[in-house]
């Protein structure tokens, strides 16, 4: 086991960890007070210098994003916090919000101060009832204690935090889809430009950040840049566009492992170490067939690629889309990859918002082809067709407005490239793995 001492998750096992009293006893909101003593631009610079990259999936440098806001904007400027954690296999936001909501709220308060926003919206996915109740309580406590509201801590800074519970759609996690949904509309991602930092929520400059990013902001303010930079992976000197992968990360380990769960580990751990040291290996000592490095839209790691470091660059080097949400899903060698890919395709066909033609039709087409293959009616040429469709629907950026199509295509093309022989064997055998229950419940 690693000697790393969790920071973001340090408090989650304490009794009553979600209450304000408990948080204040652990030095809570000191970081916010510290930030209030600094100039907003200095807080932004601090976050920028820390090298913090967004934890929501794309890994965009958080401080840099904040600097995209128009200078001297008369306001209002909004902060929208993305708690629509819908990528299959991801549950770190849930842990944070249920067990330590104040850590996130403090990060929101600091971020609002840094970007000169007086209103933050926290968008929570519908399914997180426990987190919703914890958040409501936490926000009420903050208002009661004067941490939120007018003139917080006598600094002259006003802060409102509003909670919004979504209606359960994957696309609401896309930043402009989230903004549309917050405005009360159908969550159809917007065309860019203008980017949200220029024109976002209610046509005002808006920053959209992830829950885990907010927790990281709290810790950076509390512990400083040096602490943050001492964790993780520095930039690759050979890649000038690499911003490095600093800081701790909440990896969500699930699938065929003995100890699934959310583990806080420095960025850059390899998939093998994560599965073996933290997850306790695969049940029954079975082998690993594939590992999803960061949510199913990122593709698959083959067994030979398990030593890939799970930082922002690692999965990309072995043909995956990226680190994504760091949701590591383990698939053992008893599972048919065709079934796995079908499940991924079904998810995206169901969650495609239906705005852009290639995604609306392509995701559904891939699902139907895979369904046909699974029902024993597959043809060899279907594999090339699947490759073409999965490549064609989401040549991001370009063919679609948002990244959903790209994410929908990636597991399919990645699996066919890495496990083509298994697909071929499956088609040739003509067997069907469809269970009668699936036909009834099929979307």
């Amino acid at each position, binding site marked *: 086991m690693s000697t790393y001492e969790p920071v973001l998750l340090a408090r989650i096992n304490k009794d009553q960890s979600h209450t304000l009293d408990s948080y204040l006893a652990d030095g809570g909101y000191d970081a916010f007070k510290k930030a209030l003593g600094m100039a907003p631009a200095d807080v932004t610079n601090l976050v920028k210098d820390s090298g913090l990259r967004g934890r929501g999936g794309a890994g965009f440098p958080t401080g840099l994003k904040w600097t995209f806001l128009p200078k001297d904007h008369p306001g209002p400027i909004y902060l929208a916090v993305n708690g629509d954690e819908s990528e299959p296999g991801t549950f770190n936001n849930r842990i944070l919000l249920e067990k330590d909501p104040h850590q996130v709220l403090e990060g929101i308060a600091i971020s609002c101060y840094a970007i000169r926003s007086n209103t933050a919206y926290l968008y929570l996915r519908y399914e997180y009832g426990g987190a919703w109740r914890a958040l409501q309580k936490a926000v009420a406590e903050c208002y009661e204690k004067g941490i939120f509201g007018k003139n917080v801590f006598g600094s002259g800074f006003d802060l409102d935090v509003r909670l919004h519970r979504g209606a359960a759609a994957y696309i609401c996690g896309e930043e402009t889809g989230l903004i549309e949904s917050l405005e009360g509309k159908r969550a159809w991602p917007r065309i860019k430009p203008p980017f949200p930092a220029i024109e976002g929520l209610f046509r005002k400059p808006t920053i959209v950040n992830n829950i885990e990013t907010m927790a990281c902001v709290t810790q950076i303010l509390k512990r400083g840049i040096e602490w943050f930079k001492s964790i993780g992976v520095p930039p690759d000197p050979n890649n000038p566009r690499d911003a490095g992968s600093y800081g701790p990360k909440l990896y969500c380990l699930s699938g065929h492992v003995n100890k699934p769960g959310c583990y806080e580990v420095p960025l850059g751990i390899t998939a093998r170490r994560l599965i073996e040291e933290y997850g306790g290996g695969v049940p029954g000592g079975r082998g690993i067939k594939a590992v999803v490095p960061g949510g199913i839209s990122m593709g698959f790691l083959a067994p030979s690629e398990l030593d890939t470091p799970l930082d922002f660059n690692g999965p990309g080097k072995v043909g995956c889309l990226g680190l994504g949400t760091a949701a590591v899903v383990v698939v053992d060698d008893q599972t048919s990859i065709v079934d796995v890919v079908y499940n991924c395709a079904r998810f995206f066909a*169901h969650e495609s918002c*239906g705005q852009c*033609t290639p995604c609306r*039709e392509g995701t559904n087409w891939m699902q139907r082809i895979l369904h046909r293959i699974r029902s024993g009616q597959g043809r060899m040429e279907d594999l090339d067709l699947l490759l073409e469709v999965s490549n064609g629907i989401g040549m991001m950026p370009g*063919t679609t407005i948002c990244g959903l199509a790209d994410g929908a295509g990636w597991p399919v093309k990645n699996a066919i490239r890495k496990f083509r022989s298994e697909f071929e064997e499956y088609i040739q055998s003509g067997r069907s793995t469809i269970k009668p229950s699936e036909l009834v419940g099929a979307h």
Partner: protein
Amino acid sequence: MPTVYVNDQPVELGAGEKLNCIQAAQKAGVEIPHYCWHPSLSVVASCRMCLVEVGDKKPDGTVAMVPKVVPGCQTPVKDGTVIVTNSPKVKAAQAGTLEYLLLNHPLDCPVCDQAGECGLQDFSFKYGRAYSRLAEPKNQKVDKPHIGEQITLFTDRCIMCTRCVRFTREISGTAELQVVSRGSGEEIDIFPGNPCNNKLAGNVVDLCPVGALCSKDFLYEQRVWWLKGKNSVCAGCSTGCSIRVDQNKDVVYRLKPRSNPLAQGEFMCDEGRFGWKYIHSEHRLKFPMQKLPGGMSAVSWPQILPAVKQALAEAAQRAPDKLGVVLSPFMTVEEAYLLSKYVKSLSSGAKLWMTPPRVVGEDDQYPKDLHGNATLNPKFTIRAEKAPNRAGVEAVLKHFGGEIAPLDTALAQVANGAIEAIYLVGGDPEGWITPDQTKPLAKAKLVVVQDLLDSPALPQATFVLPGTSWAERDGTFVNHAGLAQAIHRGLRSPGDAWPDGRIAYELAGRSGMFHAVTIRQEIAGVIPSLAALIVGDLGDEGVFLKSNDEPAGQSPAAANGAVPVAGGSRS
């Protein structure tokens, strides 16, 4: 001048002209296929049909291309923009999008109303592939004939461009249509109990690039390739929407709005769109009639024309001040001019009137807000003045010293004997005279009625001259804003009815045949306020009578809504 390069072909932009790639390519004569983009609606860039490659031409001549395809509708052009619409990358994107669009689109073109003018057919033919690779059954969705009184939805044909949804939100403001469900199960629908029945609803049928939204009025009536279209102007109100009359074998099947930024923009209202049915009314007058000792009887034009001329001439001679003509705002400028000039030539003391147009309620402006009130920037106006050419006939009338007065003014003069011979021009399909009003006509010595429909005035008439509807004649209509537009004869008249211009022309005894362009130019020389008609051919968009009435750089919204400029001379 800013220059844009479309497939290496330079196109100059006007000063301050803001175009997207589709419009810039149109200027160069290059078509970029598109479905969801429409010049009057907001940009959503969701159909992904207009993907093109763009780049930037540097002053030193090198071109830096963007390494991806971008939607042309969403990409503005500026000086030096390079647009490529025919590269392999673009062609692959176009073919790909079309294949996706056709995946679940039923190939029921043989029974689809849109076949022949279908965006999906046309672009598939030009940019698509010949066959589908879908091996599975297509999606089946339930049709929704209840979506509106005038419109029906073939749900499975829909390609989800959402033009109709945006129209009801942005132009009519009534927001009945919406998208329900998600992914490939998506459908256009209404909220239960709130069908799409607003006064502009018919436009969603025109906006639909495929055969999903169909007009119930036109459904299964004609194959569109049999229709012959003629440009005209809607006679429903004084907005004067530019339209096309689609007919086959002298039967009108539908009216379609034409794009005209000077008149109404892109759309037309349902009142005008479905208000042409009187053209084929059974009450149309088909033959000239004369009151003979045995009662009214049909006669031929060669018989009746000399008789009318003689009767009018005699009346003018007998009592030059007691000859009156009532013009109608449904006449064209040419007809009003020819008739007025003819009557004035008989007797300079002849009296001219024009009945004011029927006014129904108030101007109806769109978009509506939540409460059904007009918003600040109207994009479309249905006018209360239900006649197409009040302004034009008024200009002629002023020149000949006539006045605008209700029909009763003229009839009162008939009743008190101040007028003995009267020439009445009808034209309002809703009726222009009541049975009570016809009583004074019994006192007149000569009553000539020129109309297209049966009316209570006919029994009192000495002569009945069967005229025609606006769709059957040539001429000029001047709308509320002083825009003169040409109407064209789209079909032949029923029976032996003559276009009104021809009647006036023959009455005046002019040689040759009635030719609207020639008369128009003659009028321009005679009547200063109509001098702008000197161009003769008014083109598809028409010309403003007062050039200073047409502010340079007029915003499209103002042109669309034809907003009355505060204090301006436009009525």
